[in-house]
């Protein structure tokens, strides 16, 4: 028995080995390097392998002097967190509604598959293109402004439609609602239909069934979707960069700015800070659900 269980462990590790190796060499080791380099020194053109807290002190510069006003890093994290909350609320609302429709109102299996494919196909196409796609719609001479001016609802084209917080949020919702729809839909189709009939027989209205039966049972899907959306927005620098016209700061964008200035230790220090912030959020959410049981 001992020998066979050892043998099974070895076989399992051989099977999982190639994937484990990739994660070890190209995910865990790099994270270790990020942490080490974040404590290195640097000058204007290279990193210097000697211990220094400069990456961190530069990042938090002025955070104590400027009190009670917030320093740059705190303001940036505040703004990123604001995007997180707004995008999370919107994607959850839209994602839940779409998933609810697919799971409970589309009766035929074929239609369910066809419609969820319809939601998935854009996910398989390029995010950059889906962002560019908003330019002819939201730009100064874009469709939305043309229509609004044409209807005499406004005299001047609206300037805040593109390259603004508004367009960043639109793009986030456009790109990432998918991450809510699929896990929530997955949770919902596993709900035993007899529970809903029982609620109906016991006199619950549709709304009551939704709030008291379906919502609690969809919680795992909601949590998984939320983790995806929140971590994506927390670390984003591309969507905020492109749709914000490179004018809006974000936690991810600080890292990119530091990298453009070849300040690797400072970039690494910011990466460590971002990692800790993201992990705290995820650990909090993971406590609510066991992901593996939900697939």
């Amino acid at each position: 028995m001992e020998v066979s269980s050892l043998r099974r462990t070895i076989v399992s590790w051989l099977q999982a080995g190639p994937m484990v190796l990739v994660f070890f060499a190209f995910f865990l080791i790099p994270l270790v390097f990020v942490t080490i380099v974040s404590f290195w020194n640097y000058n204007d053109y290279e990193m210097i392998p000697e211990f220094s807290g400069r990456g961190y002190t530069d990042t938090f510069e002025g955070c104590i002097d400027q009190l009670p006003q917030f320093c740059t890093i705190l303001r940036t994290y505040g703004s990123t967190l604001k995007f997180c909350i707004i995008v999370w609320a919107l994607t959850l609302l839209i994602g839940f509604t779409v998933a609810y429709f697919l799971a409970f109102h589309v009766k035929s299996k074929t239609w369910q598959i066809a419609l969820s494919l319809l939601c998935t196909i854009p996910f398989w196409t390029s995010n950059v293109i889906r962002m560019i796609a908003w330019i002819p719609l939201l730009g100064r001479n874009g469709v939305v402004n043309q229509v609004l001016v044409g209807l005499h609802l406004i005299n001047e084209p609206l300037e805040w439609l593109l390259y603004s917080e508004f367009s960043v949020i639109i793009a986030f919702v456009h790109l990432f609602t998918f991450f809510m729809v699929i896990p929530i839909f997955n949770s919902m189709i596993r709900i035993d239909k007899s529970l809903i009939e029982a609620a109906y027989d016991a006199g619950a209205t549709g709304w009551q069934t939704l709030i008291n039966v379906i919502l609690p049972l969809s919680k795992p899907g909601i949590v998984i979707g939320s983790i995806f959306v929140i971590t994506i927005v927390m670390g984003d620098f591309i969507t905020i960069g492109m749709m914000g016209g490179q004018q809006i700061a974000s936690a991810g964008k600080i890292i990119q700015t530091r990298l453009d200035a070849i300040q690797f230790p400072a970039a690494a220090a910011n990466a460590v800070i971002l990692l800790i912030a993201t992990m705290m959020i995820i650990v909090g959410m993971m406590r609510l659900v066991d992901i593996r049981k939900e697939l």
Partner: protein
Amino acid sequence: MREGRSPAFYILAAFFAAYVLFLYGPMFAIFVLSFQGPDGGLTFPMNGVSIYWFKHLFFEGTGVINIDVSFVRSLKLGFTVALITVVFSVSAGMAFRKKFFGQTLVFYVAIASLIVPSIITSLGIALEFRLIDDWVKANQSWLPAFLFGDFQTSMGLFTSGLAAHLTWTLPFGLLIMFAIFNRFDPRYEEAARDLGATPWQTFRYVVLPIILPSVVGIGLFGFTLSWDEIARSSQAIGPVNTLPLDLQGLTTTVTNPDIYALGTSTTAVSFVVIALALFVIGQLQKKQNSLGSDAGKGV
């Protein structure tokens, strides 16, 4: 349950339709605009209809970069990533069907690789390869000259670039494998074993044919995620660019419908791959159904 359609159905159906319009509408706008006439601009109205901008993009070039070169480069990388993702995911997925020591740790590492912000992974891989470069350059005196004689950098499309993409596609592959095996009936395997099949035969002739349609799905994820990847590539891709990185660069410099033409071309490739994969999955499932159990059919 209740007969007929409730009013809620129509409200929700309208909501769903609006969501689908929101998903596809903007993409549709750039497809149309990429066929602008030669004098057309970045916005409506259309100034004639032509394929001028496609010719301009691929044959005259946009000045700085060769789109066709990065197009081919991204295709090669995409198919490599897809292939590796399929093989590694199926293999690891088999391992996870039984409990093994360290299983939970591997699972959490995979999840972490998925949700740790891409810029951090990308930065880490860039640092890793940069440190390797520094080490090679410092030790060039005794390293074999035929390998390291004209060493520039270890970063590149199929080293650091491939690595960065795999950290993104493998977790998806593993999660899909979990979903597959949660719905898999182990009695098929037991039957094969009882009939004297070796573990490899059981896998090759029983398990693989059953899961094959979903495995094609993993390949689809592998290719499309790589084909469109920017965030992880941004720091780790090395000296040459992939297509999406070029496209991102173009958005800041190019002010003509070139970018729409490129957008339409890349999306066309995505659509062809998606259609092909879905077709293969459909065919495989059809074949499975026709060869499936004849129990109760009175054969």
